């Protein structure tokens, strides 16, 4: 295999894996606190679209990512009010957010950019001194946009927050046994509210990463079920952030293998290549789904005193 193909494979892995990782981090925070957010697909699209618009207007990728994050927070407010505060069914609300998010963004995109289909071009990469000169990994891993490094830092921060801090402990308790948290003097509502907002932020950021950095453009329905795969990753990872990172990169690799194969002489039908990631997800599910674990209080609204 030539060097070029390997570089393309690694770049592809990161491009496909990072949005999934960010979204799954967001979903993990929500699920650990007991809120199942099925709206993640819609939130990613909203984050992607508004991030895209922001970059078109300001030419700043960082600002675009920030706008995508804020759009994610804004759209998760629906979940916050309807499900956490008012106790509506989280599954119904989540599906509504997904449908609304994909509908609104595709209408807005067709309306505003349908005829022009603008593209963003590339963000200037952070070339890490010396490391970026190494063959293969240099031009791929160590010449990524700055957001790649930030995303990995975010993953580390979330892991630390969940397992080593007081608020993180309270967050996990809210998903395991909210009544215990309440009896211990913590606020279930507050904990879950903040978790939903943080989850929305990371999902929106994941969508923005996908549109701005991985694809370089927004197209309607561009997530193609990535949000649902994030939910699968979350359930398999059971709150362990290292698993979220690894599972996301494995998914990324399965997407990138297809791209890499197209660069070689191997003659594989395009449809088969597109199927690859989904086949891998299915195999993973068959093998590991038994150990999938859901926090006991997931998707159960909390009412003090109710048994």
């Amino acid at each position: 295999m030539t060097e070029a193909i390997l570089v393309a494979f690694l770049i592809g892995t990161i491009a496909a894996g990072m949005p999934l990782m960010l979204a799954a981090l967001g979903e993990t925070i929500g699920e650990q606190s007991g809120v199942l957010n099925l709206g993640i697909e819609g939130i990613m699209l909203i984050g992607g679209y508004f991030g895209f618009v922001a970059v078109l207007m300001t030419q700043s990728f960082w600002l675009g990512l920030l706008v995508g994050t804020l759009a994610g927070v804004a759209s998760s407010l629906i979940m916050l009010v309807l499900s956490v505060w008012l106790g509506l069914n989280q599954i119904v609300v989540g599906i509504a957010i997904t449908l609304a998010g994909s509908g609104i963004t595709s209408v807005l995109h067709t309306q505003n950019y349908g005829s022009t289909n603008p593209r963003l071009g590339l963000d200037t990469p952070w070339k890490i001194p010396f490391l970026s000169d190494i063959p293969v990994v240099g031009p791929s891993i160590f010449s990524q946009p700055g957001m790649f490094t930030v995303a990995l830092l975010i993953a580390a921060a979330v892991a630390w927050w969940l397992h080593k801090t007081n608020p993180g402990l309270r967050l996990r308790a809210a998903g395991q046994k909210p009544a215990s948290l309440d009896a211990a003097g913590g606020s279930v509502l507050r904990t879950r509210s903040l978790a939903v907002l943080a989850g929305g932020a990371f999902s929106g950021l994941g969508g923005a990463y996908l549109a701005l950095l991985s694809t370089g453009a927004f197209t309607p329905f561009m997530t193609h079920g990535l949000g649902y795969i994030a939910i699968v990753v979350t359930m398999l990872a059971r709150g362990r952030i290292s698993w979220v990172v690894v599972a996301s990169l494995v998914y990324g690799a399965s997407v990138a293998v297809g791209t890499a194969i197209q660069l070689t002489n191997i003659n594989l039908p395009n449809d088969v290549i597109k199927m690859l990631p989904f086949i891998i997800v299915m195999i993973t599910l068959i093998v590991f789904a038994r150990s999938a674990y859901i926090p006991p209080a997931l998707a159960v609204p909390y009412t003090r005193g109710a048994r």
Partner: protein
Amino acid sequence: MNRADLHAPVEGAQNEVLVRLEGIGKVFPGVVANDDISLEVRRGQVHCLLGENGAGKSTLISILAGMQQPDSGHIEINGARVAISSPRVAMDHGIGVVYQHTTLIPTLTVLENLMLGDTGRLPLDRKGAMKRLKEVSAKLGADINPNALAGDLGLGQQQQVEIAKAMWQGSKVLILDEPTSMLTPQAIAELEESVNRLKAEGLAVIFITHKLREAYAIGDCVTVLRGGRMAAYISPEELSQYDEEAAKKRILEAMFGDDIDNVSADQAEELAGATRAGQDHDADAAASRPVVLELRGVSSHAGRMEIGIEDVSIAVHAGEVLGIAGIDGHGQSALAETIAGQRSAQKGAVLFEGREVTKLGVRARQRLGLRYVTDDRLHEGIVGDLSVAVNLVLKRIGQAPFWKRGQINRSAVQAEAAERIAEYEIRTPGADTRAGTLSGGNIQKILLARELSHDPKVVVFHKPTYGLDLKTVHRVREAVRRFAAEGGAALLISTDLDELVELSDRIAVISKGRIVGEVANDSSGTSERVGELMTGSTREPSLA
């Protein structure tokens, strides 16, 4: 130990009043839960709170813990009026609560569970918490492993962790809500010792129980609640004048008031939770009767969150009650469901009247006369949205005479319902009332009526009295006894040792899915021997 020694005034404690409740009232839609209740809690005293289910104990506690707000009356702490608006406020006032249902999170470690109430700085302060745990466990006289998962601990140890958790913020008042209901006699003794230590430290303790024996053994003074009102207050001076019998009698009178005449001496004793060993019937006689239900080396898979059973062999004779004792979650559900046919056996054979029924389904076993009274009465036992009448024939769907050519025969169902409702005194507005709206006791009566009618031969009772009020408890136990007396074979699975000792001819002990031993219930000391078997092989590290 001599009662006089135990209850001698604690030195150094001036017995000042820490908490005073004045005229507390609380009304829920349709129920007056608390009506003008006043009580005082003093330093270095154990104040026992007694009453039946629904007497208002839990409501009073949740008001004190900040989970509920009183509609009238007020609370004073150290002489100052306070509003306990949330659990956090209660904690800040030094009130620590050990709830009846565990609040430990099984997937977190002991230390994490304890730190849950901490605020302070962002990162978890493990070192500080370890230090504090050392202090608290010294006070308790307990040895607690901070890194074990809470779910892996035995119930006795979990209880100690719960108390440590309640004392974590430096509590001055400790509330224990029915702390002994799931414990072995050994663990109860350890708990009593811990409570006495805390008392000596100058803490005030509110001890809620419905066992008169414990109230007398642990309490310095007693308040009895009935129907949300204060039925009696027995001061330390008064209590110290009574011997055990007199105290029990006084409390029983307060608990049941005029009803006491209807409660025979025997029943009263039983309500008092006395451990009465020695069954009237002859164990040899039961052994000579035919075996109705037999399990030979049966193993079955684990369910969710619970272990399965491994190589279980038991036999139940006609006319006897075989008790199954064990700590909750040690394979009881798997055992019951394997017998009922709801779970398939991987190995071994289930025999009914000598005939193998291992491969038969629930319905076929039901028809043969093999019945199961489930412990999950609300979800598995009934369909809450269906009428009482339909629930009474739930296990005979499609069978004559209640169904004819695939159609429900309303008059037959109604007639059956009317008969059962009268026979079991099910309190329901009508046969068409939705079963889910009834109280737990009446739902249990529906289950009993359904399983004990139409020629039952073997009945598995799974925790049949758990969470019921005393009168229903009595009724249920009577039903079990009568069923066996009429020649039925009863398998009684329970976590309540007193109940097992009272009803069973023999008691087998299940631990980690295996039957680890069997005790004939013919002399005193049965519950101690069963308790030893329960903890025996997996003996918990000494807590005392």
